[in-house]
């Protein structure tokens, strides 16, 4: 079975979904992520779905579950790069994915996470994080 790779970049886990999200793949990703958050101690998860043409209700719910699980493990989840067609379809279906934070692209997603950490820990932490983020952004 195909698996979705989970990459660690600084304080963030980056998941870029490049394959069709079948139900099993989604569930496997949910498990892998939970394990990796605990083993790496990361505080942010970015899930890039810019390559996904279809997001069905199951994938939508799995994303929401992943967000909840990582929040329990003190990691904030941001879903980035949703395509316009996917967004329109989800709205037409009445799925507004409550509880999931979104950003337009990976860069803005990292900004969002950095900002949030800064709000939690004050400005000092923010400077450190930004410096850690910068090479990661250019690398992606």
């Amino acid at each position, binding site marked *: 079975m195909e698996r979705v790779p989970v990459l660690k970049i600084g304080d963030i886990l980056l998941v870029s979904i490049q394959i069709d999200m079948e139900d099993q793949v989604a569930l496997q990703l949910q498990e892998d992520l939970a394990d990796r958050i605990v083993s790496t101690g990361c505080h942010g998860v970015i899930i890039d779905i810019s390559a996904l043409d279809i997001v069905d209700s199951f994938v939508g719910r799995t994303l929401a579950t992943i967000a909840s699980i990582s929040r329990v493990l003190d990691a904030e989840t*941001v*879903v*980035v790069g*949703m*395509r*316009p067609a*996917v*967004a*329109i379809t*989800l*709205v*037409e279906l009445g799925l*507004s*994915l409550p509880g999931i*934070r*979104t*950003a*337009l*692209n990976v*860069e*803005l*997603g990292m*900004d969002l996470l*950095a*900002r949030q950490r*800064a709000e939690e820990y004050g*400005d000092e932490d*923010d400077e450190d994080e*930004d410096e850690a983020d910068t090479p990661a952004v250019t690398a992606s």
Partner: protein
Amino acid sequence: MALSAEEASRFAVLLEENQDTLVGIWTDRVAEGLRGRLSRTELQRQTADLFKGFHLALAGGATDLTHEPADELRAQLTELSSNRARQGFSTTETAVSVFSLKEAILPKLGDDVASLQDYIAFSAFVDAAALFTFDSYVRVREELIADQAEQLLELSTPVVKLWEGVVAVPLVGTLDSARAQVVMERLLQTLVDTGSPYAIIDITGVPAVDTQVAQHVLKTVVAARLMGADCIISGIRPQIAQTIVALGIEFGDIATKATLADALRYVLNKSGSRKPRER
């Protein structure tokens, strides 16, 4: 009463013999109908072409407009009516250009019963030709209207970049489902292309907001949110605010501002509070 083959050839001969006079009279009649909106030379050329078309069709033995020898005539009629439609002539004015041939040809026929029968048959042929111009005239007009509707759709939904990271959609005119769809797709695509986290939907130019329009706007906002961008609705006029409340439309936690300027200030405040810190 359809044209028979002998009648067709008889008329072909008649047309050939009296070409110049007939074209002259025909052009006069058409010119009367058009009241000088086309120059005499232009008309002369057009009728001469048509006349040739009729002659060719009849000489070729066409007893009906759909027959093969009448192909050229049909093409000429199509061209004539599409030109007239584009130049803004009415259907009557276009059809008269064909019908006048009957008036022109009547004096050239004898008084006997046979000629009268010939004339009736020929007249049926000309009628068919005129009806054909009607059809092509309407078709060209409909194409024009469809083109214009499409252009209007394109024109009326620009997405403009207002500031670094802020795009705006000034909506003008009534918002129906088709337009709302176009606006939504354009806006979302622009968000992706420019990576702007903020979008302002300005409804100053929307004459009335009913539940349907509100529904479309709300859908757009929710879709933009799903993609990770924030939408602000601006340009709500006093009457529209009253209508919105009277209709019980809920915008929930979507920011609404009175003017585009207010919305831009709000967005800059929101994004400005983090921008300096990131530098």
